[in-house]
């Protein structure tokens, strides 16, 4: 086992354990903080995959913005941070079965893909991942249209949020 494999196993275990804690803990702030830990674990996995840009963006957006927003929303809207109701409902077994089926299906799909067992090629040191990504996002024959559509969607959400929250004096 190489060192990067050991690191991957530790990180993956940490990510899964904190993801489990997100849904089992009863304290909402703790759940949000475990979510932060999970997202951080995912960022580390990106870093192991040599996707530095994605790793850093994951931390900036998910931890720096979205998780903070979650915490704010919980703190400002709930008087009691504890969740008292039952954590399971009567659909729990059906849910578990569905989750298992989806897992088996995904594993089957992935194992029939020929890239599944291939060893990843070592990236050359001067390979400019960021430049490639930037050009792909603004070149018309790559992802320009989805990129712009996503921007318009976000802008519409922003305007909508301001309109809903705005009180006319």
């Amino acid at each position: 086992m190489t060192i990067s494999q050991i690191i991957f196993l530790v990180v993956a275990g940490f990510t899964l354990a904190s993801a489990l804690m997100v849904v089992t803990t009863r304290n909402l702030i703790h759940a949000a903080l475990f979510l932060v830990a999970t997202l951080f674990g995912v960022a580390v996995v990106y870093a192991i995959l040599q996707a530095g840009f994605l790793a850093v963006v994951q931390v900036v957006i998910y931890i720096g913005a979205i998780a903070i927003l979650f915490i704010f929303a919980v703190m400002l809207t709930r008087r009691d941070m504890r969740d008292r109701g039952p954590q399971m409902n009567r659909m729990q077994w059906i849910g578990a079965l569905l989750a298992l089926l989806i897992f088996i299906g995904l594993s089957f799909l992935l194992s029939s893909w020929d890239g599944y067992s291939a060893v990843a090629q070592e990236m050359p040191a001067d390979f400019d991942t960021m430049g490639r990504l930037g050009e792909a996002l603004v070149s018309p024959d790559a992802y320009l249209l989805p990129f712009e559509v996503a921007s318009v969607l976000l802008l519409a959400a922003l305007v909508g949020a301001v309109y809903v929250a705005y009180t006319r004096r």
Partner: protein
Amino acid sequence: MEFWKDPLKAAADWLAGILVGWGLASQVSQVIIAFLGVLILISLLMVLDIFLVWVERKTVARFQDRLGPNRLGPFGLIQPFADIIKLLIKEDTTPGGADKWVYNLAPVLSMMSVLMIWAIIPLAPTVVGVDLNVGILYLIAAGAIGTLSIIMAGWSSNNKFAMIGAFREVAILVSFEIPMLTILLIPTVLSGTMGINGIIESQSLWYVFLSPLGALIFLIAAIAELGRAPFDMGEAESELVAGYNIEYSGMKFGMFYAGELLHAFTFGGFWAIFFFGGYRFFGLEKVHPFLAVAVLIFKAMLGYWVIMWVKYTLMRIRIDHMLALNWKFLTPLAFILLMATALTNAILKNSSILIYWAGMFIVNIIIAFVALEIARRVSTAQRARLEGRKGAAAA
């Protein structure tokens, strides 16, 4: 000769040779050496941090026309060690009803968010932890963890003052991140890279001359990110007692305090790196790597001094003014400046370097002048309206 040119790499190679000689795999020895490097860097930073306490106290003393620490050792240099001993032997209290795990984790994360940044700071062309190609974003990402630590400290202390302080501080941190990130794109546009080393290498003329307005906005946003006066809403002594760190005692408070000082020094360093040429000083950095380190530390100290100068000169701004300054002035200004810089860069890219420099400078001056003129008119109109309302109330 090899040793003279790059002593750290030579030392690492020598150590790797010994470890491999002991029968370790070369991969394992590389990991051990990386850990050692991190350990040495962090130890040096913490020692520097002790020294920074003394610098801060001496400087504030000068600003307030007193002497500062002057009893222990020459110029009071031993004072910070006495402070640390005091912090270490103080009782470590945990408030009743506090969330113990979160409460104890917050100071660690606060310190960690600062130390993490040093992984990407190039102290010299070869003395750098890792030269990320997304260095600028990494800086913001480390700041995000600092934000998280503040809200954790404020919430877990079970204290209303701490909570209010954390809310205010996080509101400021989240908002000032936007002009900060926008301004950081200006060195990116000028140098064509997001890597810190690349930005320094391309500064044949310091970027403060190409983008003086950008340097100024970066300084303002950096001071707000540090949560220092005039933006010290998170711990406003006179209204919130001590804000988010009110319940912390002993070394846990010390972690917040040391983190804040080191953060200020770090941002002084980043101001130097992005706008004052980093470790470059008239070819001095090519003589020896350690000279380059000295140049960077000197420039970072100057930046730190400017941050202290602002802190001890200006009064605290009210929270609504602070947020209005950010959202209504700095953010639009930063966006306009970024667009203008990118446009000028595209137009003047192929002309001679002198015209390029002059064009950049003139564009900055024009934007600064127009922005200040608009701000002056708006504030005059606001003041007139307020005075009219006051007059009506008096009548």
